[in-house]
């Protein structure tokens, strides 16, 4: 699948990740630096979320309703991003909403990756009926627009956080499974895997210690492709009023609420929407950069 020539290069970069990362920093384009900075900020919000909010995000103040955000006429420094129809502080809601969206997306991405990578290994290793069954499941998953399945399932199962998490975890696993299976099948035939096998290593040892690190690059790229679509999955469902619902909040839920006030208070929709956009944008820029660095063969 890949040319023989770039295999040693890839295993070298993976075996010394820190040296590789540092050598990358010097030549990093400005957009990539900005993306990493923004994603770091989002991670800080995800970890510390509720400690950072200036007000409790659900605190109602009917005397300060629909205040505009900072540069607009009539704003106050007590609410730098303004307030919504119930006088709740938009900055606090944004922080908590971003925390919810990010935490769910990270969890969903990781669960999807684990399921997909495991099944990909199983399909490649067991072959025959296992392979057929797993690939049939992959076809099935790819045949159903998962967003629509989620819509139906959530409607009939009701507002359950566990169901929502399961749906997010199952979103996108087939991509990892397909890539892992292909990569494992081709990696198995390469010198290093055959050599370790000849030394008497068990399949599990070969896969975990030798094959997985060698195919980590393409899987990492798949992660950066999957992450933006997972956050869009969460925000779209919450936007439609499924997924995260009041009294909880997420970026999509805020945008859905703000949509009703486009004429009188456009910022209620535009502020959370911008945060979603910047998150997916940063992840895509970072992903493109990683892909170009990890797999030079893609570029020419």
């Amino acid at each position, binding site marked *: 699948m890949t040319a023989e020539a770039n295999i040693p290069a890839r295993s070298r970069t993976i075996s010394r990740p820190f040296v590789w990362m540092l050598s990358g920093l010097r030549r990093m384009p400005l957009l990539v630096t900005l993306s990493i900075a923004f994603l770091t900020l989002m991670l800080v919000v995800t970890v510390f979320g509720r400690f950072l909010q200036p007000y409790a995000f659900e605190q109602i103040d009917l005397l300060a309703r629909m205040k505009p955000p900072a540069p607009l006429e009539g704003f106050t420094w007590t609410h730098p991003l303004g307030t919504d129809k119930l006088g709740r502080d938009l900055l606090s809601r944004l922080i908590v909403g971003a925390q919810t969206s990010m935490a769910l997306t990270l969890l969903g991405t990781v669960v999807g990756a684990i399921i997909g990578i495991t099944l990909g290994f199983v399909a490649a290793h067991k072959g025959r009926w296992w392979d057929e069954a797993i690939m*049939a*499941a992959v*076809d*099935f998953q*790819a*045949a*159903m*627009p*998962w*967003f*629509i*399945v989620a*819509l*139906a*399932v*959530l*409607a*009939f*199962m009701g507002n359950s956080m566990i169901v929502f998490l399961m749906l997010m975890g199952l979103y996108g696993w087939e991509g990892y499974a397909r890539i892992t299976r292909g990569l494992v099948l081709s990696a198995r035939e390469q010198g290093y895997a055959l050599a370790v096998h000849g030394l008497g290593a068990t399949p599990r040892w070969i896969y975990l210690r030798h094959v997985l690190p060698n195919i980590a690059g393409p899987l990492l790229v798949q992660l950066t492709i999957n992450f*933006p679509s997972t956050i*869009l999955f969460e*925000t*779209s469902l919450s*936007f*439609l*009023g*499924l997924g995260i619902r009041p009294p909880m909040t997420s970026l*999509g839920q805020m*945008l859905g609420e703000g*949509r009703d006030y*486009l*004429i009188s208070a*456009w910022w209620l*929709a*535009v502020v959370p*929407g*911008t945060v*979603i*956009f910047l998150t*997916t*944008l940063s*992840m*895509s*820029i970072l992903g*493109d950069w990683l892909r170009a660095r990890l797999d030079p063969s*893609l*570029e*020419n």
Partner: protein
Amino acid sequence: MTWLPVRLARAALTMWLVVTFVFVVLRLTGDPAAILLPDDIDAQTLAFYREKWGLADPLWQQYLKYWAGLLHGDFGISFRNDMDAFALVWERVPKTALLGGTALGIALFIGIPAGILAAIWKDSWIDRTIMTSAVFGFSMPNFFLGILLILAFSLRLRWLPSSGSGTWAHLVLPAITLGTGFAAQIARYSRSSMIEVLSRAYMRTASSKGTGPVRRVALHAIPNAAVPVVTVLGIQVGQLLGWAVVTETVFAWPGIGRLLTHSVALRDLAVVQCIMILLALTMVTSNMIVDILYGWLDPRVRVGAGTAQK
């Protein structure tokens, strides 16, 4: 020539899985009659409706009946307004087809030339501009793009309507919203596919034969670069339908997507089920067509896949 039967068997298996999945998920989530009818209803009425909707039988009988119904084109009765579920869905199909088709047209019309230009002038400012716009384009959530377009063109400039579907003007904003992300994705795929093809030996052969650059690109590169792009398109059709749900909701476009969100809110089982099965059928068919096109564009696939599948 085992290629086509194998492909058909796979499509049939996928369809069976989808139909069964829909049945299992929608039936195992509780008693639909109890969910649909008011809480204070008496047991006799409940039993009447359970009987009427065929919910009183054992599950395996329901499953067989459900299949028998589907094969006769009977998708059940909408619980809410007693209309044939299929008829309800079918009358929305033209609207979604119009929106989806226009969006796909926009995506192809912008995406393919953009990708080709970027590949030809790789690493130039043209390439960088196109690819940077593409990253912005597919990172933009379409519900947010829709809202921004409404703010700009409906509320501020007052050029275009923000909701409904009466005239051609109503189609503009939703089609742009739905098409932008796809244009960006198609541009990326066309670019990488073109770059690969342009570096092949037969392109050098063509050039040394004295074939001019326009002819080289149009007759040698584009047909070869089209193969992977077509495959990707087939996969994207499902995504397009998924995002159409959101776009239709934002613009109050009366298509399948809005019917789905509406039916989901009302828990109208038969309609949701019908939409899901029709969507899966659309997806499986479009993937089949893509595979056949693929075999037609690239004869190696026909032969290769036939031998690979033992």
